[in-house]
């Protein structure tokens, strides 16, 4: 799709939503960690599906049903390639990253016993905390958490203390949605495997940044959402090792996931169908696959370099602003971090910052970022976050910095 190298203008032109601008200004969309925008290629794939191949899958013998089924199968194949799964059977389409983690919490969770332990971290998004709290309540499973360092990384020194012999699963984020820190997955996997525990990675913030290699990561489950990787809402992927999925009971009941149903009992199909009850998000899976292919078509190294350089520019610009009032929360370097930057303005509330920046056309996110335990660890109620995607450029970063300067003045800070 893309030639080698990285033509930023060419990429930006594929995002029609960036064109009109907001409040009569250029739109500097820096809220990609919440939802990334959708390139034309993905929208076109969805429209094409709805206008040419729309039907229910796997049920009917007619032209459109065959076409829809093939489109859905192809989508699974694309997602298999995107995460380097061993087979398509390891790709379960879900309603999103949250749906994927809940699937594991209910299904894998039902195999755990009271007193068994699930280890999360203080860095997690609520989507990777609440399902485990609910499991704890349901089944007496004990939830423990790896603490964070002041830099906003998992505190690996604590692993031996937290991951004990009763640990059955370590469920942590691959990349923090607050600090941008990338988890040292090898260390986590080593600690988990040492006690025979499985590892789930929440890849919501990693998936937008290029293909993933679940085999190389050595984990057991990988969960992510489409809408954060330029795809449609309403769909995500749970990748799971097939031997593991095969042993897991179903989560949702309904059509398409059964082997046989009588009024007395149900027997279940093999994975992945066992975990895809009811009509799946067909057009959305098609869109997600188009997004995965769109990302894969970009020169990954060049894209990475582009985002690194913008992240560096942002970190430099922010540090020390407002006479030291502005403080970055998270790693200050570019090593093992993704382009998500959170900061605090002493005496300034994130929502006020966001509001004033919105007037400058800069879209940020303020608040707890669904990571209240991390906020507690940092002793704040919220941060302001700028998160980058491929279409962002130096102009966006500069708009943030100058806009923030003006906002601080406005707030008399």
């Amino acid at each position, binding site marked *: 799709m893309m030639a080698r190298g990285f033509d930023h203008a060419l990429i930006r032109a594929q995002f029609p939503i960036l064109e009109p601008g907001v409040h009569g200004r250029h739109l500097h969309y820096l809220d990609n960690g919440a939802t990334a925008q959708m390139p034309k290629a993905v929208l076109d794939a969805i429209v094409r599906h709805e206008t040419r191949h729309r039907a229910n899958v796997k049920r009917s013998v007619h032209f459109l049903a065959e076409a829809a089924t093939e489109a859905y199968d192809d989508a699974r194949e694309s997602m298999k390639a995107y995460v380097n799964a061993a087979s398509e059977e390891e790709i379960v389409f879900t309603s999103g990253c949250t749906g994927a983690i809940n699937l594991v919490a209910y299904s894998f969770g039902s195999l755990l016993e009271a007193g068994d332990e699930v280890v999360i971290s203080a860095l997690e998004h609520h989507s990777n905390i609440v399902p485990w709290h609910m499991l704890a309540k349901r089944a007496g499973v004990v939830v423990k958490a790896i603490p964070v360092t002041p830099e906003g990384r998992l505190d690996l020194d604590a692993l031996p203390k937290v991951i004990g012999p009763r640990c059955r699963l370590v469920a942590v984020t691959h990349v923090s949605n607050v600090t941008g820190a990338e988890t040292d997955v090898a260390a986590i996997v080593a600690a988990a495997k040492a006690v025979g525990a499985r590892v789930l990675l929440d890849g919501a913030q990693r998936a937008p940044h290029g293909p993933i290699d679940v085999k190389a990561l050595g984990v057991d489950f990988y969960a992510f959402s489409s809408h954060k990787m330029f795809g449609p809402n309403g769909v995500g992927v749970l990748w799971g090792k097939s031997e593991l999925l095969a042993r897991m009971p179903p989560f949702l009941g309904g059509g398409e996931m059964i082997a046989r149903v009588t009024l007395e009992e149900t027997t279940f199909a093999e994975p992945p169908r066992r975990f895809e009850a009811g009509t799946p998000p067909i057009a959305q899976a098609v869109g997600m696959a188009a997004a995965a292919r769109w990302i894969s078509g970009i020169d990954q190294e060049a894209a990475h370099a582009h985002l690194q350089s913008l992240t560096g520019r942002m970190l430099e610009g922010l540090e020390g602003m407002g006479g030291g009032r502005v403080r970055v929360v998270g790693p200050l370097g570019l090593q093992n971090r993704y382009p998500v930057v959170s900061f605090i303005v002493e005496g300034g*509330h*994130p*929502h*006020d910052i966001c*509001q*004033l920046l*919105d*007037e400058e056309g800069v879209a940020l996110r*303020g*608040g*707890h970022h669904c990571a*209240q335990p991390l*906020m507690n660890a940092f002793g704040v*109620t*919220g941060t302001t976050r700028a998160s980058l995607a491929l279409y962002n450029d130096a102009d966006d970063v500069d708009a943030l910095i100058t806009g923030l300067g003006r906002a601080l003045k*406005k*707030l*008399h800070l």
Partner: protein
Amino acid sequence: MSDLYQSDLLRLAASADGAGRLEPPRASVTLDNPLCGDRVTMDVRLEGGRITALAHETKACVVCQAAAAVIGRHAEGLDKDGLAAARAAAEAVLKGGEPPAGAWAELALFKPVAKVKSRHACLRLPFRSLEAALAADQG
């Protein structure tokens, strides 16, 4: 919206009128805005259903702080109906209208919030906390 961040509103927020705690309160309620984590604690002392003393602890944005300060200024002496009238005045402003003359006329400062739905909750939070505190005392 930039008209929101005028000196008057910023001053109102900074005044932090009524900030602090009551020891002991008769009723105390803490409410969060779950979407942003903002938090308002309202301590009140009541007599015959009327507020005789009030203090609030507000960890929140300018809008919410300013709203808490307005309450801090004018809530003494209110009963449930008086508070309902104040809340109605705030809601009228959020609908783009004018607050009635009187103690709550100051709510006019919040008029720019009307068109930013995501911030409505910020103005409401101190009112909701106070309502809950009154209800807690009575029930």
